[in-house]
């Protein structure tokens, strides 16, 4: 394995082929003509490797060799496992992390990770409330021997990256419950909350591990509200503009947002009643969990104990109980229906965390070309980019619209899902795919999609990563220059479309290298 040599002018980008997840290594030259390395994310969904031989340790070892064990800047877009779990990956032989061999200069994170930021803490608190609600639903499902219950639990685990952390999850849940018992109004309150989830849950541990690699002073939090773009230490000219996650006071504090774009995190009334189901309300005179006074209810778990014979007969005849497979009444029971709401809540939370993705536009100094890294940003993030602008060091004002118009390398958000990239027209008032790559930049535009399409299609129900309609749109926009980590038989150049100019196509192929472990592109400046 060899060092990754930066180009003389410009930047090299490696899209690793670890599986269904993001891992991007970049190399450019610093002011002293030395190699300068930037890593964005490192993770994959469990068991989504592209092949048995390309495991995450090989990828990390390659990163170590390519950078000579020193990465100048690590950016983490957001905390989902397919973006971070590589950082925490353990070598089973010595129980050390593969990343231990690599030193880090700086860590760049989204403002939502800043513990000194009141808004970020507010978000996190509400996020944890929701997580708690979902864990409660999950716990309810654990003991149920039922196909539907099992598939719902699987779905929650998948959405929340819960898999295999039973002990940690339990501890989080119990601590939370205990606290709520003592202080029922704590839920949804603005009160101080322990950062339980941050260290106890595996995907959070990976994030924490990288943060601990550098002293606090070398963690930067990027915020789209900042006036000026960021610079890499000792690198001339390259500027980094944070486009997301959105920072809108109104969106963050509004408890009743309208529309899908906005941060909610907060629990709705429906969600709160879900929680109170597993966390006794303890209101005077009420049953522990129901909405009515105790005297109106019988315990569902002990139907035989219903004293009034007529009532007992009625319920036995109408609803029935027992777990027999041959139970003729079972098909109409609704024992699990109420927990189905948890799946919606989990999906919502997952989308919302995606929208906390750090989104950066990296601008090269000479040609002003832009590389756009979107993490898993979804619709709401796109909308929020529309009106952003910054002060360029030369005194001019740079708008997000200009940056997007100069994009020549576009990391497609969320593995090409339907809501990771916004459709629209160039004339629309909100940022969308048509805002990207205009004028001469149009001919250089390349789209990168990190995904394991084959693995994703096998999910039940299948995940469309990428969505065919989006893939088609990108193919048209890029005149065929779309690179994916995975097609069925490994990395391949797409077929040259009839519309693509021969010289340009040759240029595109010359600037891209397809390897077993990665796809590498060079953007000249």
């Amino acid at each position, binding site marked *: 394995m060899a060092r990754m040599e930066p180009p003389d002018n410009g930047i090299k980008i490696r899209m690793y082929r670890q599986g269904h997840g993001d891992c991007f290594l970049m190399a450019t030259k610093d002011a002293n003509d030395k190699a300068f390395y930037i890593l964005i994310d490192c993770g994959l969904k469990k068991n989504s490797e592209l092949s048995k031989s390309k495991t995450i340790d090989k990828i990390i070892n390659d990163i170590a060799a390519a950078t000579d064990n020193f990465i100048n800047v690590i950016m983490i877009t957001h905390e989902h496992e397919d973006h971070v779990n590589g950082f925490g990956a353990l070598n089973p032989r010595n129980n050390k992390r593969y990343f231990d061999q690599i030193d880090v200069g700086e860590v760049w994170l989204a403002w939502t990770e800043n513990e000194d930021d009141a808004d970020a803490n507010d978000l996190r608190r509400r996020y944890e409330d929701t997580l708690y609600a979902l864990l409660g639903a999950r716990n309810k499902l654990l003991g149920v021997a039922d196909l539907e219950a099992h598939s719902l639990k699987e779905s929650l685990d998948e*959405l929340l990256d819960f898999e295999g952390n039973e002990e940690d999850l339990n501890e989080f849940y119990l601590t939370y419950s205990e606290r709520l018992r003592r202080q029922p109004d704590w839920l949804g309150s603005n009160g101080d909350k322990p950062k339980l989830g941050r260290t106890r849950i595996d995907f959070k541990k990976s994030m924490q591990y990288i943060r601990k690699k550098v002293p606090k002073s070398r963690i930067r939090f990027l915020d789209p509200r900042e006036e000026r773009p960021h610079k890499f230490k000792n690198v001339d000219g390259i500027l980094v503009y944070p486009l997301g996650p959105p920072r809108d006071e109104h969106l963050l504090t509004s*408890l*009743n947002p309208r529309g899908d774009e906005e941060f909610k995190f907060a629990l*709705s*009334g*429906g969600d*709160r*009643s*879900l929680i*109170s*189901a597993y966390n006794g309300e303890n209101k005077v005179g009420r*049953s522990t*969990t*129901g*909405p*009515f*006074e105790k005297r*109106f*209810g*019988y*315990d*569902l*778990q002990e139907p035989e104990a*219903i004293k*009034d014979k*007529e*009532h007992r007969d*009625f*319920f036995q005849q*109408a*609803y029935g109980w027992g777990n027999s497979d041959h139970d003729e009444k079972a*098909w*109409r*029971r*609704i*024992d*699990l*229906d*109420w*927990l*189905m*709401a948890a799946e*919606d809540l989990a*999906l919502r939370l*997952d*989308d919302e965390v995606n929208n906390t993705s750090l989104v950066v536009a990296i601008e090269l100094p000479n040609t002003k070309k832009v590389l756009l890294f979107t993490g898993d940003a*979804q619709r709401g993030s796109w909308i929020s980019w529309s009106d952003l602008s910054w002060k360029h060091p030369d005194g001019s004002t740079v708008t997000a619209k200009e940056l997007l118009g100069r994009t020549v390398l576009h990391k497609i958000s*969320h593995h090409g*899902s*339907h*809501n*990771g990239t916004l459709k629209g027209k160039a004339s629309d008032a909100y940022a969308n795919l048509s805002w990207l790559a205009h004028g001469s930049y149009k001919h250089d535009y390349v789209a990168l999609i990190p995904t394991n399409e084959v693995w994703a299609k096998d*999910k039940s*129900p*299948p*995940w*469309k990563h990428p*969505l*065919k*309609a989006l893939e088609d749109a990108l193919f048209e926009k890029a005149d065929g220059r779309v690179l994916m980590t995975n097609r069925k038989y490994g990395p391949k150049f797409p077929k040259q479309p009839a519309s693509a100019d021969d010289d340009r196509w040759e240029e595109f192929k010359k600037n891209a290298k397809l390897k077993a472990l990665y796809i590498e592109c060079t953007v000249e400046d």
Partner: protein
Amino acid sequence: MEQSQIGSSRKLRVFAVDPSLGKLLHQSHLNEIILSIPWAMEERRYDEPFWGPSGEYLEVVDVDPGSGLFYKPINLNDPSLLASNGLSPTESNPRFHQQMVYAVTMDTIAQFEDALGRVVLWSPRVKRGKKQYDDEYVGQLRVYPHGVRDANAYYSPEKKALIFGYFEADDTHPNIAPGSTIFSCLSHDIIVHEATHAILDGIHARFTEASNPDVLAFHEAFADIVALFKHFSHPEVLVDQISAARGDLETDNLLGQLAQEFGRALGRGGALRDALGEMEGETWKRKTPSKNQIRRLTAPHARGAILVAAVFQAFLEIYKSRTADLFRIATRGSGIHPPGALHPDLVKRLSEEAATSARHILRICIRGLDYCPPVDVTFGDYLRAMITADHDLYPEDDKKYRIAIIEAFVSWGLTPDDLRIVSEETLVWKSLDEITQNSDLKTELAEDLGTLIENPEAMLNWIEQNAKGPSIVREKLEEIAGKIGKILETTETPESTRARPNRAVSNKYSVQKLLEQNLLSLGLKANREAEWWAQKFYCQLFWAFITSPANRELLSFIGLSMDNDAPKTVSRSSLSQGLPSIEVHSVRMAARLGVRNQIEREYVVEITQRRKAYFEAGTQREQDKAVEKDKEPDFIFRRGCTLLIDATTFKVRRVIPTKGDITDNVVLERQRSYLSDVRDEPKNAFDGGSIDLLKGQAFSELHRVAGD
């Protein structure tokens, strides 16, 4: 006390709208109304306990799994409740909740039965048998008043159940205490809406198959329409609101709005849905008709809202024209009211006119259900259905109902896309005579069928000679007759004298006898389970007529194909050497009062064909040529027609075909492209899309977003 001494119906108190009205001083007098449920619908003696309530149509089971509780059931026959019209409305006693869902759902059922002249049946449970899917009769719709903890309520077609949720209110609305519990089973509108879903599913089980963007939207819209017009059947609320609106219904008022408390509790600032207007910030604005809006909307609730708006607009126009004279009289011709409240007499008269107009429009809407194609309904089809239904009842449109409906549908862009001229004449579905007028085809399914049906012996002979597979038809008819016999014997004979179950059924219920007495003509007096089987009986009979070789030429005129060259994906019959198969999906009897007040009956016969369909056009082409038996289709493509057949003369009075027949590749492509879009527009970032829609189980999804 004798049954006859306590009147003809059970009276039960319910919230007029929902609990929120009683909490506002100026509306608190509208809190409560009384509903009447005919004893005859309950088939239950008043002196036996009536737990649940679990009666002939409904079974209210108050289990709340989220709280781990059964709530004590109400006994509606408790003497103290019989004497006091049930419990008085309250949020804090679950037994009142049981009473209210029961009363409102029964009231809705009664309304449908009155309009259709037959008993309401629930869609059957489909059970996977060894060789095929079997339908199983479902007598009672299950109702769960506190089934989920969610701002949601839905009809579950799989469980044949209405499931109502409850949730904590958000703290945004001034009239709702934060954290208070909102029960969807206490909203009159929500109950009617969900009950209507179940009733509609019982009539058109295939209207849950979203084969075009209108189908699920129609389900939603129809449920809203019934809930809206129900407002006009409660005189207390009606009079109050007409008075408050000074007779002008085109203003912000309760009558045109659905689910007041629910909407506010979700922080919407107003009702969940409004047929007339919408809130723009703090102000209410009347919706204006737009022909193009419908093209942009795809979500079922949003699309459905357009249909609701069109129907409500038709109602308003009728109300205005019926009350114009009253306004002229009251204002001495000026049209301008003096300031202040309207005279109570005027309010009363206006309310009567509003109630009559609403009742009539709702009847047209309900009766229109029998005039829809069996699958793949569109809003345009429904317009034709409503117009035909009313036309057949009142050939002279002297109250101008039909003109008002057509005008409203045109203004909202909801007209059939294949009609060049939209008028009553072109909209009314054609008769078989009209369809075949340039051919020399005879237009009777069997010669002298009208006389055949009077003479069972001749009928059976005809089957023997003309049907394909006569022995099979005969066998099935006998099997069903046996089942009907058992049901009727059990209900007709007192328990003590009942014969042992294995005894052969007396020949009182032989095929011949059943043909003689025609159980379908019993109307509201029918035993529901026997009626369900009788419908199956007539399905067999009509299948024999329609598939008879003698009628083969006729089929192409009514949108069916028995062409040997049809694509191989079209489902084939095992009886006739692999010709395309035909399913008589449903036969029901529609009764109506004719122009001279005599009862007229007609069979509503739904006939369908099916074809395996694939998302990939290439796969479709391959399979069309040589179908692989085991290759699962991506979706089922169905075509067919509904026939309205006069029960005495057996003339085919109306032919209501789907667009294109089962071999039509253009229509198939349209459906494929719609379903692909649905599939590619997933509800979340992961699933490939809501394939649920294809399976027709999407109500809980639809409803969870509470009206978006």
